């Protein structure tokens, strides 16, 4: 187990950060990826460095790789650099995503492109590169972080929902194409997870959200990360092409 390696896209903060830390805790070497484009690149790098420090404090190994996963060359280089560093890639977690709420009537072409490229194209680019390597090793785990919104849609989230449900077809096809090569691909669809975004919501909005959740609380990033960690293991080899909701029972 010690030598297994994982790449988590968008892992400088949020759910990705939690996934990287939990994988490290279970003995994975982790590649921490942050978005190195835009005006906040410096801040994202600092956050990635904090994640790396925590990883190292656990006695695990990590590296930081900046990339813009919405761009083919950059996403490909990210996967290649991880493989170059450790000579292997066992687990790819496509987690990087952005959201910008807007009613369909007001969605610009640019916004649609931006969200689809960041959330969906990125998973395609990274998976394409990773699979090439994984099938040779006859082992690989691709875990795509979708959302319950990708399964049900949501007001103001046409782009986000489309990108997240696009992952479904991508994942199932990878599962079918490479299942015979020891590579599995699965989807995790989180519900309402505590985050910077949900913390900013007015109290009555949170209360209304929680009222729909049998668990009676919002989820934690660790709730998602724990499942990633299991899907990442050899023991999960017979779970393939599945979508697993982590939503406290909200969708039942």
């Amino acid at each position, binding site marked *: 187990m010690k030598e297994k390696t994982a790449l988590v896209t968008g892992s400088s903060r949020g759910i990705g950060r939690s996934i990287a830390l939990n994988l490290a805790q279970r003995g994975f070497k982790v590649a921490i990826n942050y978005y190195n484009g835009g005006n906040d690149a410096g801040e994202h790098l600092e956050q990635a460095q904090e994640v790396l420090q925590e990883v190292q404090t656990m006695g695990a190994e990590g590296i930081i790789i900046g990339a813009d996963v919405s761009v083919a060359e950059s996403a490909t280089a990210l996967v290649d650099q991880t493989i170059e560093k450790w000579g292997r890639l066992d687990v790819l977690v496509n987690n990087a995503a952005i959201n910008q709420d807007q009613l369909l009537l007001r969605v610009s072409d640019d916004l649609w492109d931006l969200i689809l490229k960041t959330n969906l194209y990125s998973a395609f680019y990274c998976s394409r590169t990773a699979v*090439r390597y994984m*099938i*040779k090793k006859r082992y690989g785990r691709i875990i795509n972080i979708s959302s319950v919104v990708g399964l049900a849609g949501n007001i103001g989230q046409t782009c986000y929902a489309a990108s997240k449900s696009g992952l479904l077809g991508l994942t199932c096809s990878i599962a079918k*194409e*490479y299942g*015979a*090569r020891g590579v599995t691909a699965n989807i995790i669809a989180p519900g309402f997870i505590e985050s910077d975004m949900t913390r900013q919501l007015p109290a009555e909005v949170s209360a209304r959200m929680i009222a729909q959740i049998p668990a009676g609380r919002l989820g934690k990033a660790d709730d998602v990360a724990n499942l990633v960690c299991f899907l990442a293991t050899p023991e999960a080899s017979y779970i393939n092409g599945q979508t697993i909701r982590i939503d406290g029972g909200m969708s039942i």
Partner: protein
Amino acid sequence: MSVFETVKEIIVEVKDIAAEDIKLESNFEADLEADSLDIVEMIMLLEEKFDFEIPEDAAEAMKTVKDVVDYIEKRLADDNT
């Protein structure tokens, strides 16, 4: 090692069949039971081994082991001239 021997080795790696069952005239689908993914994987390994890219249309035209060997020998000869 001859090109045929190298190709044989790669087919064995991908398909896990006995080397002696692989003949020059073996058809990938009919004789070696290779599916499209097996063939893509074989092409990938050949590209790495010989350090050149095999274009999609050339790959699609490869039906038998001989097709592959001929193609590679031709590419190697072209590179040397």
